[in-house]
């Protein structure tokens, strides 16, 4: 008891004192955060504007036609097949790596995340290298599964680590057989992770261009890009974008409905026991097949195809001048984009940790909503706005960086928030009491100490930018040729061997960033 009360009095003294009136620093931060949110919501505003400008009649004709119906069928089937397969794969793999005595579990766990280092369109490139005839829905689903299941594996395995095994014991003592325990106790607690991961995959399926273009599977995104490339920027493309955005909203709504209201925090004091490890016994080798097969498809195929093309191409494909230039341009754009994204995330990250209010939560919601818009819509919006309103900005670095900020801000936000939350607010107050202005105090304390989180944010945003193709292609300044763009141009000319070095470089540079993502998810889960 004594310990309890003295602990709680310690806790009371360390509760940050939140001032009633917003000091100058807050209002400034809030202003910047609102401005960034407005910029982020530009694509959504554009779609609304385009719909109104098109007029009801034309819009109706352009939307309710055979072509859009076909695209809708493709999209729905793609989502409906891919997500459940990913979910089953992710849950099985997560269970095997977290809850069983699978030999080499740590290795398999990393290998289940590593496919993220291979851009989706490189997966596609690898598969048609092996099966040139691959196309259509079945190909699309198969490649999407191997390219995207890590988005579910990461949160689900983290959730497995956080589950309190006492609940499972309790369920057993109430007469439930092991499988029933899994269904009635474990799965419901994974729901949040499953919904979040499934949403992320769904949004990627809607937004991805290169993967599907390469195997000639039409989705809204590929159709919009085709339109854009042929008729530049017509009303038809705008209406396809409208439908695509509506699809995104359907996914967001579904997820919000299925997710449930609250987090399932552990009740009660103390730390949870270590989860019980199931002994696989003679099933061990059979179970090993799953991660083995998954790794073969998700990593083996890219490695095989790349290796084959690299060997077949020999030294001739390493045109160092071109490759060097593309690499340099990619690194520069990743760095600028990553830093800009993180900088844009600082105000809202600080507000949401230090001054959590309704307004800050609402703003945060805006950023997440904005980033769930497909790259093609973001790019379309920025092209239209720059051409019509601010022509000098058309196809400049500023515009493309804005697109990246809109698309990848939440990645930076997540790491920033976590690290700002670890810096005690008293430091900021101490700096202020030593005569620093509020902004200066913030800079000298929290920003400095949250630097590792910011670096992680830059890295994660850069990972997204490096493998981004759609918006980059539509917005890049003339003469720009990033690794992804060069790769895409070469595969377009059926020069698969020539494209291999670019793919290799993208993978090599993505690896450490993916490792960062992996270790960050471990850290968030506390182990």
């Amino acid at each position, binding site marked *: *008891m004594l310990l309890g009360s003295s602990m709680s009095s310690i806790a009371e003294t360390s509760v940050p004192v939140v001032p009633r009136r917003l000091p100058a620093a807050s209002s400034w931060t809030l202003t910047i955060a609102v401005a960034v949110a407005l910029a982020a919501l530009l694509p959504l505003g554009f779609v609304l504007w385009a719909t109104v400008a098109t007029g009801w009649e034309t819009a109706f004709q352009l939307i309710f036609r055979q072509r859009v119906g076909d695209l809708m069928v493709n999209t729905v089937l793609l989502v409906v097949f891919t997500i459940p397969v990913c979910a089953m794969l992710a849950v099985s793999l997560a269970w095997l790596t977290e809850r069983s005595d699978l030999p080499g579990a740590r290795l398999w766990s990393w290998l289940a995340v590593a496919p993220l280092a291979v851009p989706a369109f490189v997966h596609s490139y690898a598969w048609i290298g092996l099966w040139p005839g691959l196309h259509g829905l079945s190909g699309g689903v198969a490649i999407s599964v191997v390219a995207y299941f890590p988005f579910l594996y990461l949160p689900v395995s983290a959730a497995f680590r956080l589950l*309190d095994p*006492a*609940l499972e*014991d*309790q*369920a*057993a*003592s*109430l*007469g*439930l*057989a*092991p499988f029933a*325990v899994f269904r*009635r*106790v474990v799965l*419901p*607690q994974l*729901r949040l992770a499953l919904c979040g991961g499934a949403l992320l995959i769904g949004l990627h399926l809607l937004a991805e261009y290169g993967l599907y273009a390469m195997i000639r599977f039409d989705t809204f995104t590929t159709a919009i890009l085709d339109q854009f490339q042929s008729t530049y920027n017509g009303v038809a493309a705008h209406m396809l974008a409208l439908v695509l955005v509506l699809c995104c909203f359907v996914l967001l709504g579904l997820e919000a409905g299925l997710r*449930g209201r*609250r987090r*399932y*925090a*552990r*009740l*009660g*004091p*103390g730390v949870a026991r270590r989860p019980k490890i199931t002994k696989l016994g003679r099933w061990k080798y059979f179970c090993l097949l799953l991660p083995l097969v998954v790794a073969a498809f998700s990593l083996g195929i890219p490695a095989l195809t790349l290796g084959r093309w690299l060997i077949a191409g020999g030294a001739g494909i390493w045109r160092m001048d071109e490759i060097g230039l593309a690499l340099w341009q990619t690194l520069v754009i990743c760095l600028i984009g990553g830093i800009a994204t993180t900088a844009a995330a600082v105000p809202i990250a600080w507000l949401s940790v230090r001054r959590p209010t309704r307004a800050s939560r609402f703003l945060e919601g805006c950023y997440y909503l904005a980033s769930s818009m497909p790259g093609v819509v973001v790019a379309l919006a920025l092209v239209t706005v720059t051409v019509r309103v601010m022509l000098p900005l058309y196809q400049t670095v500023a515009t493309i960086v804005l697109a990246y900020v809109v698309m990848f801000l939440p990645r930076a936000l997540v790491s920033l928030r976590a690290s700002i939350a670890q810096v005690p607010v008293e430091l900021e107050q101490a700096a202020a009491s030593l005569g620093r202005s509020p902004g200066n105090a913030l800079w000298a304390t929290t920003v400095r100490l949250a630097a590792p989180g910011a670096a992680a944010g830059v890295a994660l945003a850069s990972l997204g930018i490096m493998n981004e193709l759609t918006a980059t292609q539509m917005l890049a300044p003339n003469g720009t040729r990033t690794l992804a763009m060069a790769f895409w141009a070469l595969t377009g000319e059926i020069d698969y061997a020539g494209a291999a070095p670019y793919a290799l470089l993208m993978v090599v540079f993505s690896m450490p960033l993916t490792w960062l993502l992996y270790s960050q998810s471990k850290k968030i889960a506390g182990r």
Partner: protein
Amino acid sequence: MTLLQLTSLRKHYGAVAALDGVGLSVAAGSRTAIVGPSGCGKTTLLRLVAGFDQPDAGSIVFGGRVLVDGAFQVPAHKRGIGIVSQDGCLFPHLTVAQNIGFGMEAERAVKEASAAELMDMVGLDRAMLSRKPDQLSGGQQQRVALARALARKPRLMLLDEPFSALDTGLRAATRKAVTDVLTAAGITTLLVTHDQAEALAFADQVAVMRAGRFAQVGSPREVYSRPVDPATAAFLGEAIVLPAAVAGGRAESPLGVLPVDDAAYRGSAEIMLRPEQISVTGGGGNGVSGTIAEISFCGPTSDVRIALGGTDISIRLDIPSREALAAGDQVTIGVSGKAHLFRQ
């Protein structure tokens, strides 16, 4: 009739012997408390009985049925033993009603009706049935957990420090409520606690555990007044242990010649008195005299150290607070009842 029989249970975690040969028999309808310091293996023992872990050796027989023997092991879900753990362990994703109905195999309406009855039984308001566990207080969570375990009408209920998360007042009330419910339902109970007062108040049989073994098993009165060794004595309450020369049921000790509870023993030994056997009076009188060496005031009682006259031995005990006493005062110490003898 014996309901639960544990025989030489052993469980090692690496080099740590959490259980080192534990045997116990629990009579049907009785209440047994296992008490011991933190880390002595109480939870481990309950987990073995519940079937959450497997012992390295030993056997468990429950109601004539072998639950564990060597490698043979009945899984937890087939044992029909209820357990309420330290933090209640309610399922956070289910409402109170769903939690209580979790282990029942019945139609929805039946489940709901019996959930409501169980809520009455554990003294909770039926209006809470639709709440989520995180909208309940700690004590309420404990009672829901008890209702959930009761719903399956188990013959044996395991309670792992179910009251330790509660504050003192609520603790006594909840303990009383739980005891009443279990007694009314005629359910055999095994309670684990590190609070000796709780164990003595709750049980018909107390098992004192130390470092993975039972130091002593017996009725509350027996373990309290006739503990097997000084450590057990100290664990169950304040004890004054003194050297003595014993012969013919009498001990010559620094507190004078005292009757002991062992008529046969001869020789030197240690004897024990409980503080309630000792009376301290100011000034002269019958008994041994001593000097107050230290005194500290703790409200209703004062903690004193009394140096006994003619020896270099001093005893420490709580006495009712009195205005008059101060350090350096002469007091007389009287002893009532028999001293307990530790055989060596």
